[in-house]
């Protein structure tokens, strides 16, 4: 290693030999002080740019490398910028290397120092191999390619907004210039990519697309790999403008997959550049309607390619080859998912079959990806039946030791849940909730609640399920969940749901110890619908009061507030409750909690203040809640998983059962 300074080596050894973090920290401080002194001895004059001209090239490089190493170790380095810049501006390649490396690692794009580098960057960037150096022409030309690469690399690593505005035109030029070497082209493509990400829509799609078409003609697979990254990003920003490049992309993919036409260097365990294939497939995933056009030549090519990948991918002795091949296969299936209903049905079924095999293998990575991809595939219309067949296997994965696998299994179960298997799935999920990891519990509770509501043909089962959830995992049952129960029960006066709910909750809250949430729901429901069961043995108004009031001293203020409202309703309905309720109101009239104070005072005074009819009116049953488009549960799911989750998509589509209920409500 020619540029390795002995001083640096010794420094690293010293640090490694430190016996404690404190010792290391001290050593670093000592070194930093030393370097600070070297950079600014105080006695001699500094150059105009702030660097110390008396330092030799060797010294400057050595000290800057040390600063970089210290920074990499995790210590703060806040000086030396002038020296770094001096190195960057140097004409010597060896100094530029150190300078640029330090620039990338030590400085941010938003740093004001960056502005002073722009001139140098521009010069280095545009010094093409065409610029002949004086004297040894060949060596000079090649050296410039290295310098261009240094500049591009640094720019890609730093990319502040100011730099972008100053440089993007140059980078573009370098990218498309016929005289640029392949090394330069690769780096320019990715540099431009970085600039475009920071500054979206930097380039006009209409103008730039033809240039990309040219770049795609390059035979060098490394260049293609970099260009494809750039293209995918540009196309994701301005999708329609790059649609014309689909045939080019398909052509390249075809060469790699069908003919395995690939330079030996790019074979990875005998597979032609898997990374490039994946990038090509990812680009195609931006165009879901690509194969709708049957007359285009590329349509049949593309279908052939995907079929071939699906049929021929197999396990191999070498785990690396297996991984690479399957990486391509999963990307191809993602493409099928994007095509959705436009994809020939045999292909979709074929994909589902392959995934079905994957979810039962022992190899955990494949199983994980199988579950994840099946959840996506199952969302296509008509494909969920194919996925349902694997329900048993997925249920086994729900109990896997690896949390990553369990999450995917939960997601997939959510997607394949339907009226016919809802009960089974929900029961399994509830059973699993008992042993579930804390990190996944909230998600499970939310999803179970959504599924139970969506697919319950008998709403009594829904109420039972939520109660079970509360008893198993009450702390994770958020307010929106039990509020939803109340909404649903209130909105369904048909049948005996309301009576059932009241009776079930009565029983649930009867034991001395009940979860806070159970008490809350019971309080509300009994207050509203307790009259339906008041004739039943043991469930009279007085019994209802007692069963609720036993929890008074262990619940929090919010629950007490609900209880107080319930007591007012009970006192209104049942004479025998009035003497029981009055003392409670009297005691709590002076509560520290404002809400409780107010409620007690007002309810107590109500009988005196208003006529009996008015009181009846006030304490009447609540009207049905209005049906909003998205329930609070769906909103919570959206919050936690983001718009693009399979579960969110599924939750927003009303099930057959839900539509029926909506119709019933309107009648």
């Amino acid at each position: 290693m020619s540029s390795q300074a002995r001083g640096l080596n010794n420094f690293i050894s010293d640090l490694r030999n430190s016996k404690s973090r404190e010792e290391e920290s001290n050593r670093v401080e000592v070194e930093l002080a030393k370097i600070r002194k070297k950079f600014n001895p105080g006695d001699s004059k500094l150059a105009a740019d702030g660097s110390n001209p008396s330092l030799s090239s060797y010294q400057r490089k050595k000290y800057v490398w040390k600063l970089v190493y210290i920074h990499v170790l995790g210590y703060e380095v806040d000086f030396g910028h002038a020296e770094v810049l001096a190195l960057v501006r140097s004409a010597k390649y060896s100094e530029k290397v150190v300078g640029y490396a330090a620039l990338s690692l030590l400085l941010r794009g938003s740093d004001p120092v960056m502005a002073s580098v722009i001139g140098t960057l521009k010069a280095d960037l545009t010094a093409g191999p065409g610029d002949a150096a004086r004297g040894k022409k060949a060596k000079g030309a090649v050296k410039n390619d290295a310098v261009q690469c240094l500049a591009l690399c640094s720019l890609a690593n730093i990319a502040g907004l100011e730099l972008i505005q100053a440089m993007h035109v140059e980078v573009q030029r370098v990218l498309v210039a016929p005289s640029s070497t392949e090394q330069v082209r690769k780096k320019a493509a990715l540099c431009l990519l970085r600039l475009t990400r920071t500054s979206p829509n930097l380039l006009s799609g209409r103008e730039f697309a033809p240039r990309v078409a040219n770049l795609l003609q390059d035979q060098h697979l490394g260049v293609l790999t970099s260009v494809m990254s750039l293209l995918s990003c540009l196309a994701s920003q301005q999708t329609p403008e790059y649609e014309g490049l689909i045939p080019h992309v398909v052509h390249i993919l075809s060469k790699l997959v069908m003919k395995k036409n690939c330079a030996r260097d790019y074979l990875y365990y005998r597979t032609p550049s898997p990374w490039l294939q994946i990038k090509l497939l990812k680009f195609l995933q931006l165009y879901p309607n690509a194969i709708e056009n049957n007359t285009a030549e590329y349509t049949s090519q593309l279908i052939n390619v995907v079929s071939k990948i699906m049929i021929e991918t197999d396990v191999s002795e070498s785990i690396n080859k297996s991984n690479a091949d399957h990486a391509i296969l999963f990307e191809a299936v993602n493409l099928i998912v994007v095509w959705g209903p436009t994809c020939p049905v045999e292909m979709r079924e074929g994909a589902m079959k392959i995934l079905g095999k994957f979810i039962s293998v022992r190899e955990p990575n494949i199983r994980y990806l199988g579950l994840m991809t099946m959840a996506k595939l199952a969302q296509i219309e008509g494909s969920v039946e194919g996925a349902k067949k694997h329900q048993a296997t997925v249920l086994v994965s729900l109990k896997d030791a690896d949390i990553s696998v369990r999450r995917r299994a939960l997601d997939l179960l959510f997607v394949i849940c339907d009226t016919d298997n809802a009960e089974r799935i929900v029961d399994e999920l509830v059973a699993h909730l008992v042993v579930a990891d804390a990190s996944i519990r909230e998600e499970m509770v939310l999803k179970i609640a959504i599924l139970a509501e969506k697919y319950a043909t008998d709403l009594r089962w829904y109420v039972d399920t939520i109660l079970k959830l509360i008893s198993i995992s009450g702390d994770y049952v958020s307010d929106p969940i039990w509020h939803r129960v109340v909404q649903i029960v209130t909105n369904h006066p048909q049948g005996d749901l309301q009576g059932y709910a009241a009776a079930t909750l009565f029983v649930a809250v009867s034991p001395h110890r009940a979860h806070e949430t159970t008490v809350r729901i019971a309080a509300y429901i009994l207050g509203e619908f307790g009259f339906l069961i008041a004739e039943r043995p043991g469930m009279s108004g007085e019994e209802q009061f007692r069963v609720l009031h036993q929890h008074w001293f262990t619940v929090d203020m919010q629950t007490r507030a609900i209880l107080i409202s319930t007591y007012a309703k009970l006192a209104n309905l049942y004479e025998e409750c009035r003497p029981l309720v009055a003392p409670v109101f009297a005691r709590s009239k002076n509560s520290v909690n404002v809400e409780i104070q107010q409620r007690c005072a007002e309810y107590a005074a109500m009988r005196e203040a208003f006529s009996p009819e008015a009181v009846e009116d006030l304490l009447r049953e609540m009207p049905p809640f209005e049906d909003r488009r998205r329930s609070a549960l769906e909103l919570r799911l959206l919050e936690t998983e983001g718009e693009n989750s399979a579960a969110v998509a599924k939750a927003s589509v009303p099930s057959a059962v839900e539509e029926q209920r909506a119709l019933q409500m309107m009648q």
Partner: protein
Amino acid sequence: KTELSSFHTCILHQPRNQYAAKIKATPSHESDRIKSIIMIRFFLLQNRQGKTRLSKWYVPPPTNTSNNNPSSSSNGSQIPYQNASYTTTNQTEAEKVRIESEVHRLVTSRDKKYTNFIEYNNYKLIYRRYAGLFFTIAVDVADNELSYLESIHLFVELLDSYFANVCELDIVFNFNKVYSILDEYMLAGEIEETSKREILDRVKFLEKLE
């Protein structure tokens, strides 16, 4: 030089995970997913004790929790840090250190039988252990996990070729070389070149210029 750990045996004798039995969204949602940024967030090499041997960040870490909210990162092709308010370099560095130590905790606590993928915040960690070093790449949820697993392997093969039976000490004393190899392999959070020969030839050529 003393060898603390050796990669060489690790690469030649990969555990053979044979399969037990040998085998064979609505669409607009999927292509929407692709439209969000997909790239490498960071690449990390850590040893068992938690010391970071290589740390390359392609986007600064988000420094406020609102950036970990998935719904805020799905607005088109904006990189998460565009949404963060301007933060000082120190805050960013502190955040990197925090995330790196959390990553270390996660990857060292996983059993060999588990997958190589960890779902973390709103991205994924792909990791693999080679002797005493853990290689971790952080990518987006929509990214191809297996391909990055093999990217790690390719990088290890690169190091092994360059250093001839690479060991952890090689990386420590030649950190600048390792970064320059990485820069020929990945740039701007993307894979730049996948031919080992191209990468290594180029690195050696550049060395001669110095």
